[in-house]
């Protein structure tokens, strides 16, 4: 046995195979990108430990993550946004962490996505657990995990096939996902269509929708199919009283120490808007939340300029409209005096 020759063969074929794999995925329209994962979130969360006077924290779910453009926020307000919104999750666990474990008393923007925020306060429920997992990871992450993240960033930025997401929807080119999508059948229950990726995020968690989602209707339709499958499934009734009470209690504590709390209802369209308006009527949910929490509140339905924005898959704004939404929202909040700590310099 000539081990040296075997090694040379292995290195050569291995290198060529990986190169071919990378080229294949690039030819399929995939590009290197950073994945939104628990490490990005934890790095942002760490900023709240030494928050400045002009720090603005943002919590909520994916809508506010996509719809508030952090670069515009920064230039328009001269404040430093810390993006802690969590995709597919309730903001309550993160709000509780901020209230209980930090002395942050700046401006806190809360994105309200009714099916997520009003769903439940049960800690084991998926929407709650997803946020709580991030909070727990922030406190428990090891030094090895921090180093792994730092080392994975250059790889994510350079190679299209590298994925480092935590959720099923993050990984669409790893071996496990490819096998899963190979030959699905309904033996084990209904099959959801594949959730194609449409995120483009920076290390500071500045999220933009990808151009493909904006320009390729067929691609956008694949995500609409996922939403349709999710929204037409069986869901327990929302726990309106429980969620509003839990949120309002945290709001009271936060405001009592001088925090500036602002609720934002970001746009939705199509099936999402229909389900939300019927299942979570504004008067019964949003209005009660605003009243009981005593927070300043902005609902896109109240502003004519937010009525015809482009949401390619019904739930998140296309980049250009997200930039418009951010600019307009800041204008409105400034004119209301809602942004107490923004810097005019």
């Amino acid at each position, binding site marked *: 046995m000539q081990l040296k020759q075997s090694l040379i063969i292995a290195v050569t074929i291995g290198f060529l195979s990986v190169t071919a794999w990378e080229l294949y995925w690039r030819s399929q329209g995939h590009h290197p990108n950073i994945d939104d994962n628990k490490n990005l979130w934890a790095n942002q969360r760490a900023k709240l430990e030494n928050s400045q006077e002009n720090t603005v924290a943002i919590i909520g779910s994916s809508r506010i993550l996509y719809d508030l453009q952090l670069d515009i926020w920064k230039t328009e307000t001269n404040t430093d946004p810390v993006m802690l919104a969590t995709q597919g999750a309730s903001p309550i666990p993160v709000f509780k962490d901020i209230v209980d474990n930090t002395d942050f008393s700046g401006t806190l923007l809360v994105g309200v996505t009714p099916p997520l925020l009003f769903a439940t306060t049960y800690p084991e429920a998926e929407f709650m657990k997803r946020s709580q997992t991030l909070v727990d990871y922030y406190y428990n992450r090891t030094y090895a995990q921090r180093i792994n993240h730092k080392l994975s960033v250059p790889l994510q930025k350079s190679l299209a096939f590298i994925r480092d997401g935590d959720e099923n929807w993050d990984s669409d080119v790893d071996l496990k996902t490819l096998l899963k999508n190979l030959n699905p059948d309904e033996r*084990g229950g209904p099959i959801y269509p594949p959730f194609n990726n449409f995120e483009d995020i920076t290390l500071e968690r500045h999220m933009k929708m990808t151009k493909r989602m904006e320009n390729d209707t067929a691609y956008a339709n694949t995500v609409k199919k996922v939403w349709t499958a999710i929204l037409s499934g069986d869901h327990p009734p929302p726990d309106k009283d429980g969620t509003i009470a839990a949120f309002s209690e945290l709001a009271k504590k936060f405001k009592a120490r001088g925090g500036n709390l602002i609720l934002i209802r970001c746009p939705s369209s199509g099936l999402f808007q229909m389900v939300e308006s019927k299942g979570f009527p504004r008067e019964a949910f949003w209005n009660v939340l605003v009243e009981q929490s005593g927070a300043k509140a902005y609902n896109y339905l109240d502003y004519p300029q937010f009525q015809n924005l482009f949401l390619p898959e019904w739930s998140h704004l296309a980049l250009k409209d997200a930039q418009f939404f951010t600019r307009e929202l800041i204008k409105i909040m400034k004119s209301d005096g809602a942004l107490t700590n923004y810097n005019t310099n």
Partner: protein
Amino acid sequence: MLFNSLSFVVFLVIVLALYYLKLFSWTGKKRMLLLASYVFYGLWNPPLVILLWISTVVDWTAGKKLAVEENQKKRKMWLMLSMFVNLGFLAFFKYGDFILENFVALMNAFGVDFQARPMDIILPMGISFYTFQTMSYTIDMYKRKIEPARTFLDFALYVTFFPQLVAGPIVRAKELISQFYEEKKATTNQFIWGLFLLTIGLFQKVVMADTLLADTSDTVFGAGKILNGVDAWIGTIAFSGQIFFDFAGYSTCAIGIALMLGIILPDNFRYPYASLGFSDLWKRWHISLSSWLKDYLYIPLGGNRHGITRMYVALMLTMFLGGLWHGAAWTFIVWGGLHGTYLILERLQQQYLPFKITKWNGIFLAFITFSCVNITWVFFRAREFETAWNMIKSMFYLNQDGAKILQSFDIMKVSIVISLLFLCHWIMRNTSMKEVSLKTPTWVLGVVWAIMFFLIVIAQGSGEQFIYFQF
């Protein structure tokens, strides 16, 4: 730090560079390895390195005293000190909550209304491995079976050597410490073979365990409902494969990494799923633990020296404690108990119904053994008895209307992987990877190596922890 992580790749490259560059003397290299081992462990939770230090200092001191002390009473006292500290760590960190829970349950059973809050103690990674390793040193010193380590550095490196620190193999002092006395350097072939073993170990962990089997096993055992027989069996054999690939993968990585440094670690697995009976299984599965339990528990309990009944009692006790070693839960004790029962039944069969194993009935016997082992894995994997019992009932088709939760593709995938695993173990049971590789053409080995590397890269993995780290 995990072998299947980017930080470990960087760590290993730095360690190998420092080891092979002519910067240090042999003592300097050993110091560097020791420091690297503390960094390897400390990057997970730095304060818990203190436990390693305490264990090292106590056993070094006890060993030194045992080497010169003649007074039997004092010798026993030094041994007891070592046992007290090491088993005390285990009792507090690993079994604290379990002991408390059972104490509360016992009180309540006697009508005493007593409640206690769980202590929520962090479990130091690999504590069961390094405490058993250091204890073996003191016990062997007590029995005058080995010479004391020449220097504190050699001993500390024996306790902490990073390739096998957190999940074994549990190496005896005589196998490892003496290797540190002379300068070690891997030959080119040893180095490349070590790299090959590291690739195989990572392939087993990242591709076979995490990518192909873990999800099916997690789905079945986390279903929370009564399952169809097919789903229960597939989930169980998926776990059977997962735990083998996960643990054998770790051991293979550890052996490969040590070999790249010129250090030889013993085998920990020898194709266990082709075992012919249960005595054979325990000579092939987690060999370093089973031989530890045999030498330091089963034989001191009397072994087979005091008649059949005492032997069965010793066997059952050893297997119960072996089960408890894996985790602080009754399900692990039942797992150990089942294996103890199998071993006793096997001895009764050999006594009253002996038969000759031929090449014709061998594979059938191996399959029966494998199937029985799979049943025990249900108790090992299930978090509660209710889950385990429901799984067993489903596996014996007693739950006619059980839910179907797996897709046909998952069933096919797991069936193929586990059938190949079984056949591969059967073919390999009387040989070794090294022997097979010697007969394999160079280019075939290179292509197989490249395929494994490619699959590891495209599987990517999510840095899943090795299952045995929690033990």
